[in-house]
């Protein structure tokens, strides 16, 4: 927007003075400007790129330092594949449960006042439980349904129910399912709220003024719009559970039912040298799974950003 004025421009360069190019960016990357990003890039290379390369290269390195596919074929052995399977199952189940419950809770929040106390409190609590949990959540559940937990004793003394009559499942896969769900629901609330906020009441009014019922509005307008962000959020939950380590490490001290604990075993065991590189191969497998999931998530994000404005 320039307004052409008849007056001479007071800041116009004097005759004979070459005006500085308005946009030096077009003329390639000036070396001096690049100096400004050196610290950042140096840091990222040392603490992010090199570790990633160590994992990738280590996955293909044998005990003698040469190239080998042994580690990757070792990942194909039964117990590691089973751990991967259990990890994927645990992540998928808790992502599905967390997504449904979290979406319901997020919808309940959207219908409340946007700056109200309820919404503030719930989103803050969700932030804490989703991001911060880790070890503390493991202890929370030990205090609740551990062997001398509050709920365990209450059920045993007042209702005569022994929840551990079939073994102490809290420290095995079922326990992980329960505790993981506990942090998946809050995460869903956080990532799904913006999508629900994007749904405008005008659409519902428009649907109604055209004679649509509530059910039709949900089936034909809201659901198709919310499907991509809902699936995207579910994928994010999957990646979150798949990468989680702290809760499982604090809960499960015997055995390694899931892949992060297998990696812990490989890192801390001093049995054989080859274990180190086997751990890297498992880590590479984890990267592949998470990267795939996050790529799908990015695709879905692009779809939903079309109307989320």
């Amino acid at each position, binding site marked *: 927007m320039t307004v052409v004025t008849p007056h001479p421009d007071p800041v116009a360069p004097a005759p004979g003075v070459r005006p500085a190019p308005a946009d030096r960016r077009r003329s390639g990357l*000036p070396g001096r400007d690049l100096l400004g990003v050196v610290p950042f890039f140096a840091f990222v290379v040392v603490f992010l790129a090199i570790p*990633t*390369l160590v994992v990738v290269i280590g996955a293909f390195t044998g005990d003698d330092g040469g190239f080998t596919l042994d580690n990757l074929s070792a990942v194909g052995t039964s117990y590691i594949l089973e751990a991967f399977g259990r990890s994927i199952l645990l992540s998928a189940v808790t992502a599905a449960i967390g997504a449904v419950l979290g979406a319901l809770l997020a919808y309940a929040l959207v219908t409340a006042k946007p700056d109200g106390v309820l919404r503030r409190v719930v989103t803050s609590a969700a932030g804490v439980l989703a991001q911060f949990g880790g070890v*503390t959540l493991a202890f929370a559940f030990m205090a609740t349904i551990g062997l001398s937990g509050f709920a365990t004793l209450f059920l045993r003394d007042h209702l005569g129910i022994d929840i551990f009559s079939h073994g102490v499942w809290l420290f095995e896969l079922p326990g992980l399912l329960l505790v993981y769900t*506990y942090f998946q629901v809050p995460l869903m609330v956080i990532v799904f709220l913006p999508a629900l906020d994007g749904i405008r009441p005008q659409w519902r009014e428009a649907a109604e003024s055209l004679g649509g019922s509530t059910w039709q509005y949900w089936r034909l307008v809201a659901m198709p719009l919310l499907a991509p962000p809902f699936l995207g959020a579910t994928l994010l939950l999957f990646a979150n559970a798949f990468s989680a380590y702290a809760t499982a490490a604090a809960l499960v001290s015997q055995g390694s039912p899931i892949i992060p604990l297998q990696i812990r075993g490989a890192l801390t065991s001093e049995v054989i040298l080859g274990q180190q590189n086997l751990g890297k191969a498992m880590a590479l497998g984890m990267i592949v799974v998470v990267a795939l999931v996050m790529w799908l998530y990015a695709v879905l994000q692009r779809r939903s950003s*079309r109307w989320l404005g």
Partner: protein
Amino acid sequence: MAGVIKRRARRQRAFRWTIVTLLGTFFLLPLLAMLEFTTRGPNGTITLDTWKLLVDWGQLGETYPDLLTGVTNSFGLVLLTVALTLLLLVPTVVWVRLRLPRLRRLVEFLCLLPLTIPAIVLVVGLAPVYAWVTYFLGGSALTLTFAYTILVLPYAYRSIDAGLSAIDVRTLAEASRSLGASWATVIWRVVLPNIRSAVLSAAFLTVALVLGEFTIASLLNRSNLQVAINLLGKSSATMSVAVSLTALVLAFVLLMLLSLVGGGRRRTSPKETR
């Protein structure tokens, strides 16, 4: 029409309170159980011994020296990580926006990369890197700040980038430069005050993440709050539950403050685009 809207509002309110009550019970039960667990005395009495010990720092340090070390380390890490993250990220992101727009996609990609690399995987690759860090800087737990800065990059980048998108950095920078300001002055005295709330929210997220981090510290054999809690769980279950509850409540207070301070983020209806 008015009747329909009123009826719907009533239905939504009923639905809202049902959901919040049901899920709220599921989420509050473990927290209440923690409180009950830490105040459980012999033969069904209630005792506050654990909590009395927890607020008495001197006594606590003598009884559980590891816990005190973990807490001190975590607080040191919080300060260092917030400082390093902001120092590394704010000038870089501003600079790339102003002078090197071609690098923006690359910087964004690098900042979001840690989201696709689980901490447990990162720690596998960090082990050799940290052998060098230990060689140069010693094996202090505070060196974890480098790894934590990588972990918070995605969150910090997003909030700082959003803050910068909301202001016209280019015009501000050009105006101050034409008035003779150095680049350092531009970033420190012009850009930074304008993205204060974004920087604040990045800092808060960093604090929450550092206080909750366990994976890297535990597997690199360094102590922090979570590692100390986990260790404590093996010797004194009651105390570890009490510290866990305190940590959760503190984090909640922190985020509540953030949501009140971060009220600067205008929550207007989404822009009518396209």
